[in-house]
C-alpha cells in the first residue's frame, strides 16, 4: 500500500476523525438524528435508515480508564471484556453461539474516556440482539474461571506486544507525557495490576459505573422511533443508575525541558515519537488546531511533515502529527519510523517543521486547501451506519448541538492565518517536548 496514513489515522483517532466533519451536502440540512430520553434516563440518538435490513448500535458508557479507582490500571478494560463472558442466565459459550448463529456482532471494550458496547444485527434479529446486549450490560456473572482466563490471556497479549516497536515506543511516550494521569497508562501498568485484580474489584466497578444515566445509545438502521423506543425501554428496564462523580486523578507532569528517552531494541528502524500534552475537545481553539495540524502533519500528502520527510527526502513510509482532543487534553504527537542511520535527520526535520509553523503564518493556498479538504470531505464521514452512529455520539458527548454538521463549515472557514499561527505558538512548544527513540542505539548514534 502506498500509504497507511488514512487507515492508521482512522484506527488511532476514530473519535477525532469524526470531529473533522464539515461542509454542507444536500442532505445535511436534515437533522442527523433524533435525541430521545428513555424511561430509565438513557439517552437514545436515533437515525432511521431503511435501505438495508440491518441495525447498527453503539453505546458510550462513562466507564473508561478515566474513572478507574487509583491503583487499578486496567480494571476498566478487564471489566468491559468480561461482560460478554457470561451472565446470570447465559454462559460465555452460549453468548458467543447466539450472536454467531445470527451472523451478528457483539462487543464491549474500554478506552480512555469511555467504554464502548456495539451490536450489529440484521433487522429481523433485533430482539435477539437487544436481549443479548442488555443481558451482558446489566447482568454479567463475572465467574472466577472467566476472570482467570481473561487475565491470563491479557497478560500473554501484553507480553506478545513487546515485539511491537510501535507499542513499546508509544507506551514510553504516553508515560513520559502523562505520568500518573490515566492517559499515561501503559501495558506494564496493567500487567502490574491484573494478577491482583479481584472479583470484588470488578463487581464494584461494574455496579458503580455501568448504568443508564451514564450512557448514550446510538441506533442507526431499519427501525422506527416508536418500535426501538419500546424495545429499549423493555430490555433495559430496571437497570440501576450509576455513580457520576469521577475519582480524582493526577495531573500530567511539567516537562521542564526537552526530555529524551532512548530505548534499545535490535531492529532496523528507529521508532520516533515527539510531543507533549495537547488540547481537549472542549477547547474553543479546537477548530484552529484541526486546521493547523492538517497543514503540519495530519493532512497526508498535503502536510508539511509528509512532504518534507517522506516525499522529498525518502526517509520514512509513515510520518504524521496528531492531536487527541478528548474529554481531557490528549497528546500532541509526531510519529515516524526511519532506518537507524537517518534517525537524527528525521528528528532534525521534525523540529524544523515545528519551529517553522510557529514562526511564520501558513500560506494562503495551504490554508485554503486545508479548509477545502476539511469541509469538502463531510459526506465521506457519514457514509456508513457506523460512522453516523459515531458522529451522533460525539455530538452528544461534547454538547456540539444538533445543528453541528451545518455549522461546522463556518467554524472551519472562520479560521484565519493568524489563528493558525496563534495556536501553533500556544500548543506546540518545542522547548518542553518529550522525544522517544526506540531502536538500535549503536547505529542510531542519537545526537539529541
Amino acid at each position: 500500500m502506498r500509504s497507511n496514513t488514512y487507515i492508521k489515522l482512522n484506527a488511532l483517532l476514530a473519535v477525532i476523525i469524526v470531529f473533522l466533519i464539515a461542509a454542507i451536502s444536500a442532505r445535511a440540512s436534515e437533522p442527523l438524528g433524533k435525541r430521545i430520553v428513555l424511561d430509565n434516563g438513557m439517552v437514545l440518538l436515533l437515525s432511521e435508515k431503511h435501505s438495508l435490513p440491518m441495525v447498527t448500535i453503539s453505546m458510550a458508557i462513562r466507564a473508561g480508564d478515566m474513572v478507574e479507582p487509583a491503583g487499578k490500571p486496567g480494571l476498566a478494560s478487564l471489566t468491559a471484556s468480561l461482560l460478554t463472558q457470561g451472565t446470570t442466565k447465559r454462559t460465555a459459550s452460549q453468548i458467543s453461539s447466539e450472536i454467531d448463529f445470527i451472523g451478528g456482532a457483539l462487543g464491549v471494550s474500554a478506552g480512555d474516556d469511555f467504554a464502548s458496547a456495539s451490536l450489529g444485527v440484521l433487522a429481523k434479529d433485533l430482539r435477539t440482539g437487544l436481549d443479548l446486549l442488555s443481558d451482558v450490560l446489566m447482568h454479567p456473572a463475572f465467574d472466577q474461571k472467566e476472570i482467570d482466563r481473561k487475565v491470563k490471556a491479557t497478560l500473554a497479549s501484553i507480553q506478545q506486544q513487546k515485539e511491537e516497536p510501535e507499542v513499546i515506543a508509544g507506551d514510553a511516550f504516553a508515560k513520559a507525557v502523562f505520568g500518573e494521569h490515566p492517559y499515561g497508562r501503559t501495558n506494564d501498568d496493567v500487567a502490574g495490576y491484573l494478577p491482583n485484580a479481584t472479583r470484588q474489584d470488578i463487581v464494584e466497578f461494574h455496579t458503580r459505573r455501568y448504568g443508564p444515566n451514564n450512557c448514550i445509545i446510538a441506533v442507526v438502521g431499519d427501525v422506527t422511533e416508536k418500535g426501538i423506543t419500546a424495545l429499549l425501554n423493555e430490555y433495559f428496564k430496571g437497570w440501576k443508575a450509576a455513580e457520576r462523580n469521577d475519582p480524582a486523578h493526577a495531573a500530567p507532569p511539567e516537562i521542564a525541558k526537552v526530555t529524551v528517552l532512548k530505548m534499545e531494541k535490535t531492529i532496523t528502524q528507529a521508532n520516533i515519537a515527539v510531543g507533549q500534552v495537547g488540547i481537549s475537545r472542549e477547547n474553543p481553539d479546537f477548530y484552529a488546531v484541526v486546521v493547523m495540524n492538517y497543514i503540519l502533519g495530519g493532512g497526508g500528502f498535503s502536510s508539511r511533515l509528509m512532504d518534507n520527510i517522506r516525499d522529498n527526502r525518502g526517509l520514512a513510509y509513515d510520518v504524521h502529527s496528531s492531536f487527541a482532543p478528548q474529554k481531557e487534553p490528549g497528546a500532541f504527537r509526531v510519529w515516524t519510523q526511519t532506518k537507524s542511520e537517518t534517525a537524527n535527520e528525521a528528528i532534525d526535520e521534525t523540529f524544523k517543521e515545528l519551529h517553522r509553523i510557529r514562526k511564520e503564518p501558513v500560506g494562503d493556498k495551504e490554508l485554503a486547501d486545508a479548509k477545502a479538504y476539511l469541509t469538502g470531505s463531510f459526506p465521506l464521514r457519514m457514509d456508513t451506519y457506523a460512522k453516523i452512529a459515531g458522529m451522533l455520539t460525539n455530538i452528544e458527548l461534547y454538547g456540539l448541538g444538533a445543528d453541528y454538521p451545518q455549522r461546522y463549515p463556518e467554524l472551519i472557514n472562520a479560521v484565519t492565518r493568524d489563528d493558525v499561527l496563534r495556536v501553533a505558538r500556544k500548543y506546540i512548544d518545542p522547548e518542553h517536548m518529550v522525544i522517544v527513540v526506540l531502536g538500535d542505539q549503536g547505529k542510531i548514534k542519537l545526537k539529541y
Partner: protein
Amino acid sequence: MRNDKNRVWMNHVRSLLLASLLIAIVAVEASAQDLKVTERVLPNGLKVLLREEHKSPVVTFQIWYKVGSRNERLGRTGISHLLEHMMFKGAKKYGPKQFSQTVQRNGGNDNAFTGKDYTAYFENFAADRLEIAMDLESDRMQNLLLDDKEFLSERDVVKEERRMRTEDDPSSAMSEQMMATAFSAHPYQWPVIGWMADIGNITRDDLEKHYRTYYAPNNAAIVVAGDFDSTKVLALVEKYFGRVPRGTEVPKVGAVEPAQMGEKRVIVKREAELPVVYAGYKAPNLANKDSFALNVLQGILSAGKSSRLYRALVYEKQIALYAGGEYNDVSADPNLFTLYAGVMPGKSVDEVEKALYAEIERFKTEPVTDEELQKAKNQAEASFIMSQDSVFYQAMLLGQFETVASWKYLETYLDNIRAVTKEDVRRVARQYFGEDNRTVGILLPVKGK
C-alpha cells in the same frame, strides 16, 4: 492472517475479504442474484463496472490493473508495488505532488494497494466530484513521468515500508518465509513488497518497461460504486479513457505450482516474545466448485468465538493466544488455506500444532452439526447485507473478483454457499487437508539475536 494492526497491504484487502467471504444477497428464491451492475467493455479493451447506490451522496472510483507480484521475476520482485508508489509521483497533466493534493482539496481521499494478482487505485469523493477522479486516473494511465530523482527517493520509501512491515515484525517475517517455502515453482512464493535486495536493484528503466507492458486499458477494469447516474458516467469514462490506445497483449504467467508430495517445514528464529505456527494447505481458488464447501468449512473452523479453533485452542485448552483459519480463494491461481495460532506462554509449539491438526481431522471423521452448517450460512447472508453499507467495500469486491476471475462469481456465491452439504464439507476436508499437502512455518523466539 493474524495481524493486529492490519498493516500488511494485502491483509487490508484480505481481512476485508474475510468479512466478505461469506457474502450473499438476500433475495427472493432465484438461481442467481442481481447485483445491479452495469458492465461495458470499451473498444480499447477497458472493462467498466458500475453499481449505483443512492443511500449516501458519495462515490468511489477505482481502477484495477491486472498486474501484481505474480507477474514479476526473481531479481526484480517488488516492481509492481514500487510502480504503484511511482504512480503518485507525477504525470503529464498532474505533476509531482499534485495527485493527492488535488484529490484532497476536492474533499476526497485516495490511496492504492498492490497484491499478488492486482494493483488497484481509488478515490472516494462526494458524489459531485467524480469527474476529477477520471481526469487524474486517465492522465497517469498513459503519461507517468517516472522522474529519476523521484524514483530514487521513492525507492527509499519502499525500503522503509518493508522494514516497518517485515524486517522489524517477527510474525510477518515468518509468514513471508512460509510462503516462500510453500510455493517452489510459482511467483506466489515472493512477497508483494519484494525482497530487500531486489528492491534495491530495480532501475527506472525496469519500471518504465513494467508500466508500458501492464498499464493499458485492455489490462484494466474501472469500478464505480455510489451515487451517480450510469448513463452519464459511461459517457464520462468514454470521454476520458476512450482514446487511450489499446496496449499490446499482456504476457501470460505460465507458472504452475506442481502438486505437493510431502510436508514442507520452515523455522524462523528471531528475537520475539511468543512462538507462532502457520500451516498452509494448497487449495483451489474460487473458480473451483470445491471453494464453497471450503468457505463453509472456514466459517465453522474460524468465524467468531463459537468457532471450533477459538473454542478449543483459545478458550477451553488455553494453549493459544489466538487461532484461526484463512482461506485465500480470491486468487488468480490456486493459493493456500492457512491454519494459524499464537502460542501461549509456557505452552509448546508441538502441542499447539497438534491441536490445530486435531481440529481439522474432526472435519474428516465426523460430519459437522446441522447447527454449525446453518450458522455458517447465516453468517454469509448477514455479512453480505452488512457489507452493502459501504460503497467502497462493494466496489472493492467487484474489483477483486473481476481481476482474478470474474465479478459474476459474486452473483452466484450465495446460492452456492446455501447448497453446501455436510458431506461436501467432509469431502473437501479429506481432499485438501492432508499432511503431504501442507507447509508449516514456525516462529521460534530467541533472545538477543
